[in-house]
């Protein structure tokens, strides 16, 4: 135990050993360890470790100086030799620098991306004291949304909470229109979705930079409105937005009291921020997040203890004691809820691609060592020490890596817009103009240079001069097992990435082709407004006058993203202890008809029937969930309203296929009509422009004071799987790069093998071997390596992708054919460079290769 604790930092010790590898420095190292232990005993391990590092870093220059003190002529000679080698083997130089450049570019891009991910919400002055309130469910899922009434209760009870703010996302429960009436001319009005109501402490907690106004005055008045720069430009153009009036839903006048700039690395993204009325203080519904600001010196465990049971103390829910209230530091919010995994995955990929590039250098340098064996031999005879040779070769690899970095910066410049479109970020090249980044780039050069050069350096410098100079042909066709292993590793990574890409795309294809249970073709979505809502029936009848309008209904949200859940459902035979979890849709009659949902038993809502207002339609899953054999005609209580089940529809995917189909209740009860947000109009495919014009005119004639806009809802379904699309594209880019760099390497190796065996091939041809025979001879070895790489990559890929697929409730099976496809693809791609070299060697005139004997 104690001896382990007293060990000097291993990295520092290693560094020292590498730099001062000669045994001359053993006593100095011993002194370091002895003094380290002395300090550790007297002043603690931490201090001793720091001291050790300082000593090592200080001594490094001395050690290096001692060992590099040789004349400038020698260094000049090294540079000359390096230059000659570079220019002699143009192909290999090209392969090496290109591979390194691509690998480094990839690494830099991913670093920039990760830096951006990690920078989220760090710009707030109070970032260390800001927390998101969360609820932990019994199945240990963390819910970022909490009841509106929770934060005010906590603020009363827990003295450590200095401020709290709730976010009430008005735009997601109700259609919002904003209207600006300039002193002359037409009003400017739009539908908006990013509308949030917050508590007045919002701007004193979060430090969003103000373009106009300031945090103190922004929310003085209850009718204040803070908007972003983009919105200011949208409504007011170049005019100063301060003090202008925007009318919300034609009812409420709000005064613009501030314009903020919400940085892209804030997880809170809002366009309109207004003040929240106090009436929510007893609202125990939860849909939106709440944040608290703790006093600077509070102890987090204490706070957590105090808030843990708050829900069971206050909330009216019977099952509240199974729910724990918790807090999540603001700076960790962005990466929680699933994103952290991507940061890990991409870091690993970045390192692997860089390694593949380094491995190319190692393999080519050791493979080409035959060309330099004599140089090494001669240097040794002339008195060069082992370490001096190592330094020479390391110097060369660092030089190559520096050239590679130069190229990679150009690639980064070119690749940035591409990455931005792939990841929906705005990364800029200027992020690299920072001191920390200079250091990082310098470190990258050194690390890549050292990693790729270390093995060749030892390999080359360990030759015995007597042997290398004695034999007439210095190179023996000795197969390096290291090279085999690394090539297999390279291709294993490539195959892995190809297989992952294939699986991601297969899953995407699967979820897009899976029947959702309803049809969204030719369905129009029109945001509802108070007028259309009040006069819905006559509006609907007017629309239906047109023969091309087939059905009209209304709903809370497009059917593929209706994730409203409730526990307020009762039915006969329900276990009183049970807290049900059921999705619901507040709709209008003709909903099932508009979306072509299959009614399995009973009937759907009848248009204009008053009796149906209290009746319910449920899905098949709900019938099973409630244990009803014959559901039609049974009683059901939804939010206190008793009604009859009149029909059962087939299960539909109301949320993305990440999640299971749940029991679902459809209701047309008028008391809930405020929740309706969209009119859905199903039109026929004939004469669409005219139909659209008709719908527009009808809507405008009803509500001339509201903006009119529409979408076809089949367009929006793409966004459901946006992140999977993105992942697929990023994976394919990485897979391409990995296989590209690997192929560069294998191209180099193949050409070396071919070169080495020129004479053998010549003799074989003279003796009558056909070209095909020789091509097979040369490609056989590589094919074997790649097959082995596949064998390694398949189980890893299988495991990783089955983990990933578990994110989806509905997933495609893992198809072994995909893995075989990945293997064949890698084999085919690798066959190109290998085959090219093999054919080149095979068709060469044997006279040339044998002549010089």
């Amino acid at each position, binding site marked *: 135990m104690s001896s382990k604790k007293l060990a*000097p930092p291993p990295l520092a*010790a290693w560094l020292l050993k590498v730099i001062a590898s000669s045994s001359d*420095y*053993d*006593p*100095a*190292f*011993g*002194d*370091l*360890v*002895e*003094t380290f*232990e*002395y300090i550790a005993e007297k002043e603690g391990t931490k201090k001793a470790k720091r001291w050790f590092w*300082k*000593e090592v870093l*200080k*001594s*490094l*220059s*001395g*050690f290096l100086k*001692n060992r590099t003190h040789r004349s400038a002529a020698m260094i000049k000679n090294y540079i000359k030799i390096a230059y000659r080698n570079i220019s002699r083997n143009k192909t290999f130089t090209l392969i090496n620098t290109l591979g390194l450049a691509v690998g480094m570019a990839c690494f830099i891009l991913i670093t920039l991306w990760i830096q951006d991910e990690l920078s989220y919400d760090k710009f707030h002055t109070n970032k260390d004291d800001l927390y998101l309130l969360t609820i932990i469910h019994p199945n240990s899922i963390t819910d970022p949304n909490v009841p509106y009434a929770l934060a005010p209760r906590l603020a009363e009870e827990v003295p450590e909470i200095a401020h709290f703010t709730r976010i009430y996302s008005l735009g997601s429960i109700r259609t919002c229109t904003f209207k600006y009436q300039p002193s002359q001319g037409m009003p400017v009005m739009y539908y908006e979705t990013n509308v949030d109501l917050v508590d007045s402490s919002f701007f004193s907690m979060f430090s969003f930079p103000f373009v106009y106004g300031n945090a103190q005055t922004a929310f003085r008045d209850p009718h204040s409105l803070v908007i972003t720069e983009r919105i200011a430009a949208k409504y007011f153009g170049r005019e100063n937005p301060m003090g202008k009036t925007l009318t919300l839903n034609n009812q409420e006048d709000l005064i613009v009291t501030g314009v903020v700039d919400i940085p892209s690395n804030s997880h809170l993204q809002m366009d309109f921020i207004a003040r929240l009325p106090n009436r929510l203080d007893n609202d125990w519904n939860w849909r939106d997040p709440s944040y608290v600001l703790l006093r600077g010196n509070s102890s987090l465990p204490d706070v957590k203890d105090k808030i843990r049971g708050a829900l069971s103390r206050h909330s009216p829910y019977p099952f509240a004691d199974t729910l724990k209230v918790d807090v999540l530091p603001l700076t960790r919010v962005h990466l929680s809820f699933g994103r952290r995994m991507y940061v890990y995955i991409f870091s690993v990929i970045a390192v692997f691609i860089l390694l593949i590039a380094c491995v190319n250098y190692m393999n080519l340098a050791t493979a080409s060592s035959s060309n330099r064996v004599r140089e090494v031999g001669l240097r040794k005879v002339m008195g060069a020490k082992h370490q001096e040779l190592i330094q020479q070769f390391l110097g060369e690899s660092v030089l190559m890596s520096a050239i590679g970095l130069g190229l990679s910066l150009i690639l980064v410049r070119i690749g940035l817009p591409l990455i931005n479109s792939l990841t929906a970020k705005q990364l800029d090249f200027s992020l690299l103009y920072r001191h920390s980044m200079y250091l990082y780039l310098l470190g990258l050069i050194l690390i890549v240079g050292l990693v790729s050069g270390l093995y060749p350096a030892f390999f080359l410098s360990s030759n015995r001069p007597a042997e290398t100079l004695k034999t007439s042909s210095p190179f023996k066709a000795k197969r390096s097992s290291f090279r085999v292993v690394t090539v297999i590793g390279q291709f294993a990574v490539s195959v892995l990435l190809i297989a992952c890409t294939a699986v991601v795309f297969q899953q995407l294809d699967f979820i897009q082709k899976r029947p959702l249970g309803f049809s969204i073709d030719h369905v129009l979505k029109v945001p509802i407004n108070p007028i259309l809502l009040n006069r819905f029936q006559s509006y609907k009848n007017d629309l239906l006058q047109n023969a091309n309008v087939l059905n009209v209904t209304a709903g809370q949200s497009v059917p593929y993203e209706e994730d409203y859940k409730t526990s307020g459902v009762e039915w006969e035979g329900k276990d009183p202890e049970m807290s049900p979890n059921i999705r619901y849709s507040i709709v209008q009659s003709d909903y099932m008809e508009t979306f072509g949902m299959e009614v399995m038993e009973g009937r759907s809502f009848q248009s204009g029937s008053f009796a149906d207002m209290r009746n319910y339609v449920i899905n098949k899953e709900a019938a099973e969930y409630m244990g009803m054999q014959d559901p039609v005609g049974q009683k059901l209580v939804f939010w206190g309203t008793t009604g009859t089940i009149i029909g059962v529809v087939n299960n539909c995917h109301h949320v993305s296929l990440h999640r299971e189909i749940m029991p679902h209740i459809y209701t047309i009860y008028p008391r809930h009509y405020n929740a309706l947000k969209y009119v859905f109009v199903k039109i026929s495919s004939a004469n669409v422009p005219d139909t659209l014009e008709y719908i527009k005119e009808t809507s405008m004639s009803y509500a001339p004071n509201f903006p009119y806009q529409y979408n076809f809802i089949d367009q929006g379904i793409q966004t459901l799987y946006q992140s999977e699309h993105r992942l697929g594209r990023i994976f394919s880019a990485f897979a391409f790069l990995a296989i590209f760099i690997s192929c560069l390497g294998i191209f180099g190796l193949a050409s070396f093998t071919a070169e080495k065996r020129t004479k053998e091939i010549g003799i074989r041809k003279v003796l009558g071997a056909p070209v095909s025979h020789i091509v097979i001879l040369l490609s056989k070895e590589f094919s074997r390596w790649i097959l082995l790489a596949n064998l390694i990559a398949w189980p890893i890929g299988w495991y990783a992708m089955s983990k990933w697929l578990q994110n989806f409730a509905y997933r495609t099976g893992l198809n072994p054919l995909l893995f075989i496809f990945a293997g064949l693809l890698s084999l085919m791609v690798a066959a190109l460079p290998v085959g090219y070299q093999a054919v080149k060697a095979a068709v060469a005139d044997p006279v040339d290769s044998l002549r010089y004997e």
Partner: protein
Amino acid sequence: MKFLSRQEELLLLSILRLRENAYGVPIRLHVCDVTDKYWSIGAIYDVLDRLTRKGLVSTISGEPEKKRGGKSKRFYRITKQGVRALEEVRELQQKTWIDISMPSLKNR
């Protein structure tokens, strides 16, 4: 010939003073002590190596010790040339300082 540098002189003197125990750790501690300055191990070895190269000290390797991470100590002994070089600087010191009257610092 060239005279010893102050650093070399310091180290030679501490090697003399430490007698049998003259290896890296005590030498450094002693030098830090007299000069009241921080000397890194690298700095000590820089000078020690120079002294060795000039032949002013000789070295003897001790046994590897577990306490020192399995490394041996290297003990330093002053050679005849080393003694001579020290005497030279002492003589120089005495000669040059003879009859020097320093202006008082306070009055300036």
